[in-house]
């Protein structure tokens, strides 16, 4: 993708109004974009413009406002389809978030297709959102969960895959990028192997951390389902996406039922609407979706390849600087190849909550805890970690502020 806007990175930061304020008297250094991202002025304006000039419910009214908002809403669906190179916009379903997208598959496809004795194959680095729905389904159906292990260098042990792909495997659900380790998994290669060994298995990819940070191509990856969230890619909260292959979506029963998702209703029965509306019951998050469209426009104007390369530069700098501080342990690959900008670490025996408080005092927002990946932390042998994560609005100076603040925290705790 060619960059259309050649702005310097500090100028990009200036597009985000939140950075015009100070936190504890210091400029805000926001290093928690893996949890949720800040919003550019263009996204805020798109939502404002909708409410001020053409807001009405979608797919209902015969009047001008409803037509205009319906058109804008459906235009975003096409924009999303183009952004992820989905074959068709009818394979793009709007949900509340990536979690709901995964639950949609678990409740519909899962309940229809998973049976006693089946195996659901996950990885050891999954977010709770791509673990707990499958635990519930497995318990309900008498299915079994198995896990692709992680290696000592925090990557997926792809060599173990062959023996894990037994004929009982009906679903493989894995993350494209770990929200803790930053590891980017070779999903295309894994899916190829799944198709060869267990052709009946369906593959779901959790793309919550990939779509915001690098270009993805549904036709190339060949996943059956792919889930992600607007709020982690500059858009509003309350909008998620489930991409699914048409032949699967058509055979699936609806998830939620009610208005908008029907073709015809009698007192006793109902027929479902066409894709994708079959899976979108009730009034959707119209304003959030319009804002999401503006977020995709913003990302595309900068260029996903350029964004990813910027994040890799910051990650390389952070790993180099953090590694030089005695007592810091990084949980994630050291090389930036196939790695994104989520950097989890610990500092001597300073508890991550204490560390995050000390960093906050210096205007730096990081995440402390298990980052919704408790089993992974158990595997790593720690209760919790501190995580700094980078996005397009971060700069080298943000990384250096983090480094200075960590040194100060070590002084306070005398370690």
């Amino acid at each position, binding site marked *: 993708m060619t960059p259309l806007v050649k702005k310097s990175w500090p100028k990009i930061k200036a597009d985000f109004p939140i950075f015009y304020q100070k936190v*504890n008297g210091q400029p805000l250094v926001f290093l928690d974009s893996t949890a949720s991202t800040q919003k550019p002025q263009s996204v805020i304006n798109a939502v404002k413009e909708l409410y001020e000039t053409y807001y009405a419910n979608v797919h209902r009214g015969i009047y001008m406002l409803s037509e205009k908002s319906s058109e804008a809403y459906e235009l975003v669906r096409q924009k999303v389809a183009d952004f992820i190179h989905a074959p068709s916009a009818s394979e793009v379903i709007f949900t509340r978030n990536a979690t709901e997208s995964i639950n949609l598959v678990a409740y519909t496809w899962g309940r229809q297709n998973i049976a006693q004795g089946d195996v659901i194959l996950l990885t050891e680095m999954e977010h709770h959102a791509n673990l707990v729905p499958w635990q519930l389904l497995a318990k309900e159906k008498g299915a079994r969960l198995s896990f692709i292990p992680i290696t000592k260098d925090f990557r997926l042990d792809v060599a173990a895959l062959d023996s894990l792909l037994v004929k009982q495997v009906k679903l493989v659900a894995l993350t494209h990028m770990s929200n803790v380790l930053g590891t980017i998994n070779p999903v295309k290669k894994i899916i190829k192997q799944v198709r060869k060994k267990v052709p009946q298995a369906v593959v779901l990819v959790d793309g919550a951390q990939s779509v915001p940070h690098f270009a993805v191509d549904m036709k190339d990856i060949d996943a059956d389902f792919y889930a992600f969230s607007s709020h982690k890619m500059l858009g509003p909260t309350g909008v998620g996406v489930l991409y699914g292959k048409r032949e699967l979506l058509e055979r699936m029963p609806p998830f939620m039922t009610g208005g908008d998702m029907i073709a015809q209703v009698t007192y006793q029965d109902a027929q479902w609407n066409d894709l994708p509306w079959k899976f979108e019951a009730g009034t959707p998050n119209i304003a959030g979706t319009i804002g999401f469209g503006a977020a995709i426009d913003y990302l595309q104007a900068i260029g996903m390849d350029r964004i990813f390369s910027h994040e890799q530069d910051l990650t390389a700098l952070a790993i180099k600087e953090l590694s030089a501080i005695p007592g810091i342990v990084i949980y994630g690959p050291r090389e930036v190849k196939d790695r994104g900008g989520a950097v989890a670490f610990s500092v001597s025996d300073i*508890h*991550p*909550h*204490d560390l995050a*408080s*000390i960093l*906050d*005092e210096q205007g730096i927002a990081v995440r*402390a*805890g*298990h980052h919704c990946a*408790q089993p992974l*932390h158990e595997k790593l042998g720690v*209760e*919790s970690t501190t995580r700094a994560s980078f996005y397009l609005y971060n700069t080298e100076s943000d990384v250096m502020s983090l480094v200075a603040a960590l040194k100060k925290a070590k002084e*306070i*705790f*005398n370690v």
Partner: protein
Amino acid sequence: MTFDMYRQIIIDHAKKPKNVGTVKQADGQAERNNPLCGDRIMISYRTDKTKKKLQEVKFDGAGCSIAKAAASILTEKVTGKSMAELKKYTDDDFIKDMGVPITPARRKCALLALETFRQAAHVEKDNHKH
């Protein structure tokens, strides 16, 4: 404000906590965790012969310095108090007893031990002022 929170009192209590362990022949014990970070605190206690006053209180577990210091301070503050007094002991009373300003984001950490104690002693939380 945060640096104040980490005044010597917290660092000292966290590094050398008082009353660590489990009370033998405890009258009550409980364990709670903070779902955000997986920290957990276990509290056990024994009352005196009258069964009305706390004679021995101990804690165990893993947590951040605020949670650990709070547990250590709690064991000191509640020992010798009557169960009737403890029913009236609010969250704010305890934060005051800790002697350091606790930021809103860390209240959960600071109150983990007190909540665990209440669970162990079946004391209803006083909802009037907290």
